């Protein structure tokens, strides 16, 4: 492609590439608009941008083509994906119209705008003769010519763009900056020293995850059968495995203010159809393990709220 000398008319290879990549680019554009899933949308946009990059190659502007792929496809769209993934994988478009009739209006105006813009461009380019870049690229090559134009004729615009980007970057840093007193942030060394001197130099006990419970809310049991309160995060409500075989002796549990609901569990209440092991996995079993604690029913978190978490692999909704 680099040594193409077709100045006045489209060469055969150019035409072939155009008719292959053109539909792909167009399909990508439509896919971007029509895809329900935000990630799929972004991927279709990547497809369009990559095709445009290939077009630049065909049009004898290899530098622009490569930059298009590196900057737009490689960097900007990756950042887009980054953000979209953090939003969550189930964030598909809802089909409910919030504004009445906006879809029809949008379609109508979209088609109208496309017709206007396309017609205008078509009219404008109808009488333009095909020049090609051979003449421009001749003296020193494509890269040198672009560099010359950028740093002489369009220097001001170039600098303005860079100022804009710098401003955006500085703004982002200012907005996300966290003010810290000097010495407030303790280093790894200080942290480890503090830990060794504290009452508990060892790690906290892990949660008691049994075969019938995959929830981290299941507390670990001490050798005498009491609950190890430190084994469950402060952020979750401990749920006792109500299974007779495990030898839990709830009467031995130390009463902790605010957690008394939990320690009032009795093993006898769980005997019967409520055995969590007899149920299939999922939110239902989470509810099942909590049922014996009649007092805490109203404090339960909604099981459906858990399944909506980002990439909630452990607890999936059927």
């Amino acid at each position, binding site marked *: 492609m680099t*040594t193409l000398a077709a100045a006045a008319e489209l060469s055969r290879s150019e035409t072939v590439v155009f008719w292959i990549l053109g539909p792909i680019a167009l399909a990508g554009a439509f896919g971007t608009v029509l895809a329900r899933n935000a990630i799929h949308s972004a991927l279709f946009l990547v497809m369009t941008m990559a095709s445009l990059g290939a077009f630049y190659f065909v049009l004898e502007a*290899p530098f622009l083509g490569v930059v298009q792929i590196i900057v737009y496809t*490689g*960097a900007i769209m990756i950042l887009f*994906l980054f953000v979209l*993934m953090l939003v969550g994988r189930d964030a598909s478009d809802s089909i409910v119209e919030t504004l009445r009739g906006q879809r029809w209006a949008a379609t109508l105006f979209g088609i109208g705008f496309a017709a206007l813009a396309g017609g205008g461009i078509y009219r404008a380019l109808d009488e333009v003769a095909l020049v090609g870049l051979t003449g421009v690229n001749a003296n020193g090559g494509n890269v040198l010519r672009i560099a010359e134009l950028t740093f002489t004729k369009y220097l001001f615009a170039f600098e303005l763009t860079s100022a804009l980007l710098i401003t955006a970057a500085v703004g982002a840093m200012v907005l996300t900056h966290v003010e810290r007193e000097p010495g407030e942030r303790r280093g790894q060394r200080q942290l480890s020293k503090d830990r060794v001197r504290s009452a508990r130099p060892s790690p906290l006990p892990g949660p008691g995850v049994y075969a019938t419970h995959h929830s981290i809310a299941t507390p670990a049991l001490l*050798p005498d059968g009491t609950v190890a309160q430190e084994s469950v995060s402060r952020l979750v409500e401990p749920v006792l495995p109500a299974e007779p075989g495990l030898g839990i002796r709830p009467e031995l549990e130390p009463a902790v203010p605010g957690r008394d609901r939990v320690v009032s569990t009795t093993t006898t209440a769980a005997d019967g159809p409520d055995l969590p092991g007899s149920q299939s996995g999922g939110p239902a079993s989470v509810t099942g393990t909590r049922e014996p604690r009649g007092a805490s029913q109203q404090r339960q978190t909604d099981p459906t709220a858990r399944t909506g978490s980002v990439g909630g692999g452990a607890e999936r909704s059927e």
Partner: protein
Amino acid sequence: MTPLATDPTLENFGTDPFWLVLLKAVFIFVFLVVMVLFTIVYERKVVAYMQARVGPNRTGPGGWLQSLADGIKLALKEEVIPALADKPVYFLAPVLATVPAFLAFSVIPFGPMVSIFGTQTPLQLTDLPVGVLVVFACSSLGVYGIVLAGWASGSTYPLLGGLRSAAQMISYEIAMGLSLVAVFLYANTMSTSAIVTAQQDTWYGLLLLPSFLIYAVAVVGETNRAPFDLPEAESELVGGFHTEYSSLKFALFFLAEYANMVTVSALATTLFLGGWRAPFPISTVWEGANSGWWPMLWFFGKVLLCLFVFVWLRGTLPRLRYDQFMHFGWKFLVPAGLVWILFIGAFSVLREEGYDTRQILLYGVLPLMVLIIVVTYLWPENGSADDEDDEDEELPPARGARGTDGGGMFPVPPMDLVVPPSPRLRAQRPITVPATTETDDTDPPAGETR
């Protein structure tokens, strides 16, 4: 600096007949696949040697067919697709990881002009005025494979691994790009074949040593290799982005990782180690070392050397913590790259103004270095707060020591320790430490101690 007649220029490309293009493309594909199979065994053998083990030695002569056997086994395994996977993207991701890895090799020069079946052609599939940037573009597309694999698996660990790798590869791509700028400035071109031609006298690895070092560090991060293999840190993320992949799709990720390793090694060879040119003692002794098919041998040897360094790093260094890794990339590699480019730019401008290299070194670089050294010495010492409290603080004595004074002894359990009986073993008697047998064996029935 007059280029040899066998040195290809940009005019030599784009004129090959179709069958030759096909031949070269197939050769590159086969070369990369064989190199990947080779590198896997090579890596295992080198690491084994470093750890005083034998390494793979069962399959094939000397164990060299081990990776082939593994590859066939992997392809024939059952494929498990997670129920929550986003199917189209899940299928697309390994392809997106693999294709750019192979594509990047199309601009790597293997050797000078040779005659293949009577046609004079360079030993390189193609070249562009922006050849090196094509490799760069391919590596930036390769990120998609990993990111999408992480997302499409529909599971937490792959997602975290994918996000990590996106951040990591973008960050280290910047450092890598900056390290290449000095080469472009020096060679006045971005085409790979011309850069090899420009290194006829001195390798850029010596001339632009800081660039080479930055490149070497950045590509280790870029290819997710140890000690920067955070996207698949086993101890934190199970397997990272490819946790949920199995069978041929996993094999594709494996292939892509090693193909990327070969590609960046080949690029390092091309940009910094003189490309296919024979190394110093050979080229001076033997005239014909840089013509014909011999250069492929030198090229292969240099690539092998780079791969050895990759393996060496893996066998030596522990994995970095993620924040340290990002710190290093953004706060050291990128600024160092920028300063170095500034320096090289000033150097080039001065040379174009008519100063010769010795003058610049004497009146520019030497005073600058002296200044830097003086400033470094005179800079006020600010040791970190952690180091200071080391001296004035004294560790408290260990608690729970057996002696009455308790000071400075190793913490041991108390002598009168009574272990409570297990509630599940009610029939058993309480266990007591034999040294303090004050309790009669007949005394407490089981379970009454509490």
